[in-house]
């Protein structure tokens, strides 16, 4: 129970910090939006091509924005030595990980929910059925980025060249999740003729189970500084 209380306390702390500085979430949103627009312009605004690439562009935009968000999430812990304070308080390392990963999931979800209607407008797509599966893809896609991203963010924030290192570590790892989320969303945006969205959702859930448990187990080695 103490573990759960600490998880919730950490998540609440992170969400409170985001609430007090909304410029950070807005920054992520506008960064992803800029990417969406750039891709649309680079493809000449093609009404044939854009609906086909809407799903993948949406997720790539979020992925690139997420590295910035994950960096920021750890920067606030390092700038005044709060991370060491958390370890010595003590906050259980696994609770610290899950609390931060949950908060990061919600931050990414907020950005994604704001991006979706904009994407649908710019790329002329829409989801007409299976809303629950669509929401599941959005939620589990965000959590799939958040778990390994939170673990690797804790490493790269304290290493040299973190702006390059976090994407380098994270991107190859989350390709299955990116693929599942993008293909699932694309399928739903084009009517899901082959009923594949649910399969992609299950793949996303399996990815989440593996990485949320593995990252939670390994986090204590990352955060203790001996």
């Amino acid at each position, binding site marked *: 129970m103490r573990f759960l209380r600490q998880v919730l306390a950490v998540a609440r702390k992170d969400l409170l910090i985001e609430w007090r500085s909304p410029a950070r979430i807005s920054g992520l949103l506008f960064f992803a939006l800029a990417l969406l627009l750039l891709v649309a312009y680079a493809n000449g605004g093609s009404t044939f091509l854009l609906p086909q690439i809407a799903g993948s562009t949406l997720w790539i935009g979020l992925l690139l924005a997420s590295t910035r968000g994950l960096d920021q999430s750890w920067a606030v812990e390092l700038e005044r030595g709060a991370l060491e304070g958390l370890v010595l308080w003590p906050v259980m390392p696994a609770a610290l990980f899950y609390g931060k990963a949950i908060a990061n999931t919600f931050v990414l979800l907020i950005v994604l929910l704001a991006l979706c209607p904009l994407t649908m407008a710019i790329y002329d797509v829409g989801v007409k059925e299976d809303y629950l599966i669509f929401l599941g893809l959005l939620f589990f896609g965000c959590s799939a980025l958040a778990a*390994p991203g939170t*673990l*690797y963010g804790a*490493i*790269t924030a*304290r*290493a*040299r*060249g973190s702006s*390059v*290192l976090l994407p*380098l*570590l*994270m*991107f*190859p*790892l989350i*390709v*299955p999740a990116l693929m599942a989320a993008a293909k699932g969303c694309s399928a739903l945006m084009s009517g899901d003729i082959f009923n594949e969205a649910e399969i992609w959702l299950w793949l996303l859930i399996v990815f989440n189970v*593996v*990485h949320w448990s*593995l*990252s939670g187990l*390994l986090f204590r*080695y*990352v955060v203790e*500084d*001996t």
Partner: protein
Amino acid sequence: MSEKSYAPWKDYIPWEHFFGVVGLCSLAAGHIWGLFYTPPETNMGDVVKILFVHVPCAWNSMLVFTIAFFAAFVSLISGRRGADGVLAGAVETGLLLTGLTLITGSIFARPTWGYWWTSDPRLNTTAILFLTFIGVLMLRVMVQNSERRAIWSAVATIIAYVNVPITYMSVRWMRSVHQIQSSPSDVDGPLKLVWRISALSILALAIWFITRRYRIEKARQIAEAAPPLPEANNA
């Protein structure tokens, strides 16, 4: 007159050089034989002979990454610095073998499938595996503190290893133009022997590379070792 005594040869020559010499010689012999003295394949002709490199590299890369996984596990649990040396060697050797797999596979694909690369589950997962471990290598390069480097790269290796079974099983789990997992029993007579020699030679070379890399890490640890503690004073 006092007799001079000599230490046995094994005290001078590191044992891993045996693997290096045997590996190089058998690799050379096997590939010369395979290239010039075995018959061409019925459908693909001589092009198929690149598989004497491609398939053993693929097998051994997965085996070496598995060694890296176990070294990472031991490094994290026991804190043994030697395990970090094995980890460094295994990651670098695994990357070399995976890179060769991708290049030779591409060379094989062009005349047989008609393209250098395609979006295929086996090809994609192998490329992703390569990039994942590049990330682990870059992490090792960018972290100066040796203890942090050992712990963090062990964590990153364990997570990166999740991709290895996915890559191996991709041809069964997903529709792929790549053939399913192969073994020497899939081929006839002289090709089977060349394949086995190639696989074992590359394994011997991998052991040689990993052990030499371990020795380099060990030498670095000795150079960084603590100087003796000063004597306690009487204050």
